[in-house]
């Protein structure tokens, strides 16, 4: 069985046509994971019992000749910040080393109802805080395209399993670029949906006004197929939007003739790697050849996005992470005499350096005397950044930029310089702050063979447009 190139549709078709059973497919994936993942480190936990139970259900349906659900038999990996009932969920943190959620996240429930098979949980930066996966409390992930390089973060494991062929699709989360940046570094497709498009019930929260769950896949169509089964309102998440869910996959393959594509000058200036620039400009040229009108635009508050993001995100994180106190779940520090000591020592022993840094920054920004100067100021600038997009989308249908300023950097390269690491998110944070959807598609390679990503951004709830443009870019560039 050749599993490396399997897409969502190919998997479902093969099972429907009885080329192989879902159980045999699960065997093949676990064999491959045992063989290949030791070098990559993308998986933290395998959910074998659950996977084989689901495979048996699918095989029973296929055996009876019943119509198969849309993701029937599709092996999927889930980022370890997303709750899976009875399957260890650590958020990449030692503090949650022993945590077994008592319920499933809505996305997990919806994927399984659609026939998907959850293979296991993927490594990530601790509590999704990082851009390289080096902040995992367990071990870093290596980029499957080049083991000296980082896979990006924070959803590094979820991007790496697609690049390594150890899952057909996967789920990640994106707060400031944590789906798009690793997709770009690993040469796979990653989609961040609109804020509120996908329920976050069961997601271990990092920054609640920014967190989104989204899919990774080998192709744009695969991400569309996964999104369409998990999107839509959910009574368990009061921030999930009551907006109808289109059949996203129907938009994949539609022509782009007459569409206006905005290209922001601010994303092609100083700091952009020359090879990344050339690759993305090549991609824009292909969109022009596909019938798009290319329109220069300005997103003029872009230089303020990183400071804005790191104030808003850390303030929210300092509040969200207050729950990790050793009382209701997690690893409690031993030999503590008082409650206050228990809180402090549990958090000191459980959290890694970056998580502590962000809690400190966020607590400082919210503390008496600094709230107006930092947190409120950042919220006002966030409005200006969102308005940049309102103005741009009055003129264009979609926006195209590089996903990251450089291809994947080396392990250890930025590990000691938090600010340099934060700047790796410079092209992804503006869309996060505005809450609009964004997609990263592979767009060629550097002379060293490292993948380069092209980012497509759209209006709120216009994932269909983002996927449509991304699909054409992906195919025009496939030969490169």
């Amino acid at each position, binding site marked *: 069985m050749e599993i490396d190139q399997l897409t969502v549709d190919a998997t479902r078709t093969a099972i429907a046509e009885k080329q192989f059973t879902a159980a045999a497919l699960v065997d093949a994936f676990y064999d491959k994971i045992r063989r290949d993942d030791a070098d990559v480190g993308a998986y933290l936990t395998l959910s074998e019992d659950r996977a084989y139970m689901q495979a048996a259900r699918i095989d029973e349906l296929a055996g009876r000749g019943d119509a198969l659900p849309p993701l029937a038999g599709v092996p999927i990996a889930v980022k370890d910040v997303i709750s899976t009932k009875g399957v260890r969920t650590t958020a990449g943190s030692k503090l949650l080393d*022993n945590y077994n959620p*008592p319920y499933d996240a809505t996305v997990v429930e919806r994927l399984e109802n659609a026939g998907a098979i959850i293979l296991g949980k993927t490594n990530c930066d601790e509590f999704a805080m990082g851009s390289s996966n080096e902040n995992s409390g367990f071990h870093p992930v290596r980029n499957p395209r080049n083991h000296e390089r980082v896979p990006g973060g924070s959803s590094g494991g979820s991007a790496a399993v697609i690049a390594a062929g150890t899952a057909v699709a996967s789920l990640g989360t994106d707060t400031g670029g944590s789906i798009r940046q690793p997709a770009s570094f690993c040469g796979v497709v990653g989609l961040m949906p609109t*804020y509120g498009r996908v329920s976050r019930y069961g997601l271990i929260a990092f920054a609640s006004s920014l967190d989104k769950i989204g899919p990774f896949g080998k192709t744009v169509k695969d991400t569309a197929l996964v999104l369409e089964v998990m999107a839509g309102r959910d009574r368990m998440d009061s921030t*999930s939007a009551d907006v109808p869910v289109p059949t996203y996959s129907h938009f994949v393959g539609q022509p782009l003739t007459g569409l206006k594509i905005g290209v922001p000058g601010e994303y092609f200036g100083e700091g952009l790697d020359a090879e990344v620039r050339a690759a993305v400009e090549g991609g824009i040229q292909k969109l022009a050849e596909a019938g798009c009108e290319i329109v220069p635009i300005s997103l003029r508050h872009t230089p303020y996005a990183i*400071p804005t993001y790191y104030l808003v995100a850390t303030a929210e994180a300092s509040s969200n992470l207050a729950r990790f106190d050793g009382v209701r779940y997690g690893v409690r520090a031993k030999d503590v*005499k*008082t409650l206050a000591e228990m809180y402090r020592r549990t*958090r000191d022993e459980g959290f890694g350096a970056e998580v*502590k840094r962000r809690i400190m920054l966020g607590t400082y920004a919210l503390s008496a005397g600094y709230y107006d100067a930092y947190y409120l100021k950042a919220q006002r600038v966030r409005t200006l950044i969102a308005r940049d997009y309102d103005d741009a989308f009055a003129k264009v249908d979609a926006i195209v930029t590089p996903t990251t300023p450089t291809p994947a950097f080396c392990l250890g390269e930025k590990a000691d310089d938090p600010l340099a690491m934060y700047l790796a998110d410079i092209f992804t944070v503006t869309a996060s*702050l505005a809450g609009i959807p964004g997609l990263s598609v592979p767009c060629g390679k550097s002379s060293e063979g490292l993948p380069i990503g092209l980012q497509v951004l759209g209006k709120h709830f216009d994932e269909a447009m983002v996927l449509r443009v991304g699909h054409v870019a992906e195919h025009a560039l496939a030969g490169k």
Partner: protein
Amino acid sequence: MVSEKDVAYVAELAHLELTEAESARMLRDLNSILGYIERLNALDTSGVEPMAQVSTRYAQSAEPGEAFAYAMRPDELVPCLPHDEAMRNAPKTDRTFFKVPKVIER
């Protein structure tokens, strides 16, 4: 500029215990990051509304409280997590309550 005293105070607020080495590193990192954040002061934001939620951007015409799908709902009792399942991940319980060390320090 953040001082050593500020680091100690904020760590206390956040219930973090930092070693001496961690505190020194934190002082350096926070000052480096806050130095970069200073660039926000170049922007005049007087009269700009703060953006606390994305839904205020796409649901501007909605009535207050209706920007989210289910921000309001009837106050009805629905099934919830059974008590024993909710307790199962706790480091220490007496099966009814979570157990913690002494709350009042003497």
